[in-house]
């Protein structure tokens, strides 16, 4: 019998089993999230996923990546573009597998310390069946929180709006007082009191009070900026306007006139001649200027919202 082309709908559940076994073998704490887990809890309609999402205890993150490396998985190289939210995962690929394994060290929208957030969900973990094996996962309400935050981060994407609506519909029909209390408990523990506000509003559950410490507020501000402003202009502006402020002019200049090598990495499709590059630079600056008023407006709104400690929709 020969090894044949592995179809994606089969590859993803098998890769869950593989990733789970690797974690178990090396004693790494891992929780599977999103896709198959959300479907197992009937919190998402079925659709073919393109990757495995596994959230590692931050303590075990590097050890787990090493374990995958030893089995021939390598990190997918990212383009060196700025980000608003810190990079929360590493994508691992393998030449024999048509799907990725996305290894998370944190989850966007959970504004508590990643270790604290993970530990809470780990203490309440459950198991779901995937590809005939049992894999560790968040409990049902933990999975609901993950599913909601994943959708809420990019609500301009129609699929996310549809999945959020589906999630809220299912929860409205199935959540009792115990589940409601659990949702509030999770939101408090993982720092999602504000980021989950649309879910609480949809379920008519009173959201817990958010923390008031500056680190939390800064993360909340980043979340709001990213949620409302996920475009290149916004990302470059966010990258430039940060402490130390004396370096802001230099960072702004760099953001506008990218160094040649970085420009080539970000825009590999641009032709080899200098005038190709300058023409592409001109188009990029034009796009940036046209997006700037909207970016500044939304950024100011979210900044004020963050200072006032409440979400703006």
């Amino acid at each position, binding site marked *: *019998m*020969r*090894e*044949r*082309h*592995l*179809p994606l*709908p*089969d*590859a993803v*559940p*098998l890769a869950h*089993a*593989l990733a789970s*076994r*690797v974690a178990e*073998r090396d004693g790494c704490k891992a929780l599977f999230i999103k896709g198959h887990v959300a479907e197992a809890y009937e919190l998402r309609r079925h659709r073919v996923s393109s990757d495995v999402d596994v959230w590692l205890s931050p303590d075990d993150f590097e050890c787990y990546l090493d374990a995958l490396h*030893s*089995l*021939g*998985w390598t990190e997918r190289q990212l383009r060196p573009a700025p980000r608003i939210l810190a990079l929360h995962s590493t994508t691992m690929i*393998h030449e*024999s*597998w048509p799907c990725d394994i996305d290894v998370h060290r944190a989850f966007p929208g959970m504004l508590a310390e990643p270790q604290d957030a993970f530990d809470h969900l780990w203490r309440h973990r459950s198991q779901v069946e995937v*590809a*005939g*094996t049992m894999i560790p996962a968040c409990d049902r309400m933990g999975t609901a929180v993950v599913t909601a935050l994943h959708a809420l981060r990019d609500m301009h994407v129609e699929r996310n709006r549809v999945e959020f609506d589906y999630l809220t519909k299912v929860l409205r029909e199935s959540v009792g007082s115990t589940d409601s209390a659990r949702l509030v408990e999770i939101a408090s523990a993982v720092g999602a009191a504000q980021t989950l506000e649309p879910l609480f509003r949809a379920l008519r559950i009173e959201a817990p009070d958010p923390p008031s410490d500056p680190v939390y507020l800064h993360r909340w501000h980043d979340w709001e900026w990213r949620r409302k402003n996920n475009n290149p202009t916004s990302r470059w502006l966010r990258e430039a306007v940060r402490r130390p402020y004396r370096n802001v002019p230099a960072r702004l200049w760099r953001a506008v006139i990218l160094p040649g090598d970085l420009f080539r990495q970000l825009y590999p499709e641009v032709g080899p001649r200098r005038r190709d590059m300058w023409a592409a630079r001109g188009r990029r600056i034009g796009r940036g200027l046209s997006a700037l008023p909207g970016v500044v407006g939304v950024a100011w709104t979210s900044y004020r919202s963050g200072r006032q400690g409440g979400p703006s929709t």
Partner: protein
Amino acid sequence: MSGMNSPDRVDITSGRWVHAADLAQVCTEDRSSVLDLRQIDHGTCPSPYVMEGAGHRIWTLLSGPCSLSDMVRAISEACEIAEDDLSESIAAFIGELDRIGLVSRVD
């Protein structure tokens, strides 16, 4: 069932066969994809196997203990092929599954 070899020294005809323990598998109507998780414990990334057609039918039969003669009879009826024409190739297929560790004998 392409790529079948003749059965090795293992006597396929005696006893019954079943899926090995510690496999991950996804079975749909027309194919089965299988992964041997024990290979991870031995430090290698397991390669998934995909079975279609008669191979998939045999794999489905092997979800419970099944003798070679049971398999030959079932495939013969399903595919309307004489049992004598199937016996050797199915035995070779089981031998291959045994060699790569996807089935075990239940005596």
